[in-house]
């Protein structure tokens, strides 16, 4: 039995310098250099490795402006089999809930799926919410921050996931959705053959009308949250300059530490 694997990817600005649409307070994504969200590269790599070891098919899916097809072609060049881009003005301005709802409709249109991979989070929004939200919309379990994955049987996996305190091992039946951290693998580079493949690669474009969904739940209007205002984050202090030899500077740092309530360790406290 071969596995159907879906990877959700996002196109993000290559730099975190951004421009905003003042009317809607949403990001202007046109006219700036874009790239594959770095965390999604690990998700894609995890999927491609399973395809190699277990057999199966990898579909990459994204929602975004038409130029987001570029990251999908890149994924096809790396070895993905099929690429779908949800692109429609009506999807624009979606919050994580409306995004998850739209992606769920697209994943269902694919038919069957066994494993869905997402990156831990996207580096532009940093919310880490779409993965778990999508799993709920599809009615399948999810696990976040997965750092290792092995198959116990063709339909059962054992995952190691990072927690705040350490790690957990969790066994899961498929279908399941996993968000992965960079510990899981080292993504491959695009080969010359792969690059040539990207040139002619076909990305399917799906609009809202191609999907079985409620149009009132997508895009800006269908979102539960709205950005009311944005402000540049600035924090500026007029710090004190400390000059002198390394010894003098070190003595002054110790003085600062003491002023701030630090107490030097007694010999019993030391680990050595």
């Amino acid at each position, binding site marked *: 039995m071969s596995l159907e694997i879906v990877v959700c990817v996002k196109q993000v600005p290559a730099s975190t310098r951004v421009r905003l649409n003042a009317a809607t307070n949403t990001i202007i994504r046109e006219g700036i250099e874009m790239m594959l969200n770095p965390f999604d590269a690990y998700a894609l790599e995890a999927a491609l490795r399973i395809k190699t070891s277990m057999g199966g098919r990898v579909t990459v899916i994204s929602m975004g402006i038409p130029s987001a097809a570029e990251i999908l072609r890149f994924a096809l060049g790396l070895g993905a089999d099929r690429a779908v881009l949800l692109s429609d003005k009506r999807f624009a301005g979606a919050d*994580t*809930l409306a995004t998850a709802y739209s992606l769920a409709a697209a994943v269902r249109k694919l038919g069957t799926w066994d494993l869905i991979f997402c990156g831990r989070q996207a580096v532009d929004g*940093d919310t880490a919410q779409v993965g778990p939200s999508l799993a709920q919309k599809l009615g399948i379990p999810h696990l*976040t921050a997965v750092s290792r994955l092995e198959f116990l049987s063709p339909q059962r996996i054992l995952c190691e996931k990072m927690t705040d305190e350490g790690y957990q091992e969790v066994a899961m039946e498929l279908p399941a959705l996993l968000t992965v951290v960079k510990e899981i693998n080292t993504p491959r580079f695009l080969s010359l053959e792969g690059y040539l493949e990207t040139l002619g690669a076909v990305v399917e474009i799906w609009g809202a009308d191609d999907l079985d969904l409620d149009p009132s739940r997508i895009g800006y209007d269908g979102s539960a949250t709205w950005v009311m205002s944005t402000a540049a984050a600035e924090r500026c202090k007029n710090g004190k300059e400390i000059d002198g030899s390394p*010894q003098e500077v070190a003595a002054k*740092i110790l003085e600062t530490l003491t002023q701030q309530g630090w107490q030097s*360790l007694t010999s019993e406290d030391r680990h050595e």
Partner: protein
Amino acid sequence: MSEIRVVTEKCTGCRLCLPACPYGAISMSGKKALISAACVFCGACVPVCRFDAIELFTEKPAWDEAPSSSGIWVFAEQVDGKVKPVVLELLGEASALARKKASKITAVWLGPDAPDQLQCLIAQGADEVIAVTDARLAERDELLYPQVLARLAVTYRPEIFLVGATGFGRSIAPRAASALDTGLTADCTRLDIDPQSGLLLQTRPAFGGNLLATILCRTRRPQMATVRPKVMQALPADYSRSGNVRMESMDLSGMAGLCIESTHVNREDGPGLDNAEVVVGIGRGIGSARQVKLYKHLAAALGAGLAASRAVVDLGWVDYSHQVGQTGITIAPKVYLAFGISGSVQHMAGLSENTHLVAVNKDENAPIFAVADERVRADCNEVAAALLRQLGGDAARE
């Protein structure tokens, strides 16, 4: 009149729809799905069915009007039966919000029965505790917890629901919000009540901390937010406070859970980064992986935690658990000694604004100097070695 039915000819008894229902209204009967009177026609089950076996007829979408709701909920995340510190910070913040909105504060405990912890929640600002103490909730389960939280929220209709932005909170809150079809703002660093509308103003850093966005959830309830640890202030515990503890009996048998095989806690020498009073941070400016040892010795000699910039982690000089910043952890030590850290906004997003920051860097133009309390424009390795010597250590020793 809304109506929902299971087309029995199509239903295969696959059970996919059971966990999709936030109201626990679907059960199995004769290998077919059965929808009980608890159904509110939310439609969450319909798309989940792969066989189009559930048919729903509704007058209009359920979220057209803001439903009535009241109260501020705080998710009382526990680990090993103990409340996590972020919960106390959330209760402190909820108390500030409740003064502006005249709301009751409810702490929601899922986990083992722990009366002392429930009393602690009240002492820290909760007016009421709702506790679900099922053996299956002892382990923090990313599939089971959201179902329980969603069902509680449907029953009691809170207006605001705050969850700590811990690894676990960031997993279960979006799933619960998705089940409730409500909005969720991630990693808030500031909360307030809009005086006109009474809505929760949810402010969070975005784009690597370059922007602060204030976000509203206008018509759906609860208004949900995850809040970064170490940002809000806990109140001093007041055990003279009294509050009602509601032990909620909930039948979890129909709810799917994860199969957690084992849980491991990392034990490192010295204090964890989370609670260290002093943290030594290293950036690429220390020069090479060989220098890391010097800073490990320095941290040990100071009784400090060791933090790193993302660059240092990406180079493999230290592991990810040390990474502080937007994609790492947040810290709030009294003093942060930053060695060779340029001070990207992403890194600074992980450091509390209340921390006294000493920056050591030979790059005169490092951005960190703009936000530092004390600036040392010098070779960081020489300063660190001198500091270690004055503490009685020796960098060369192994």
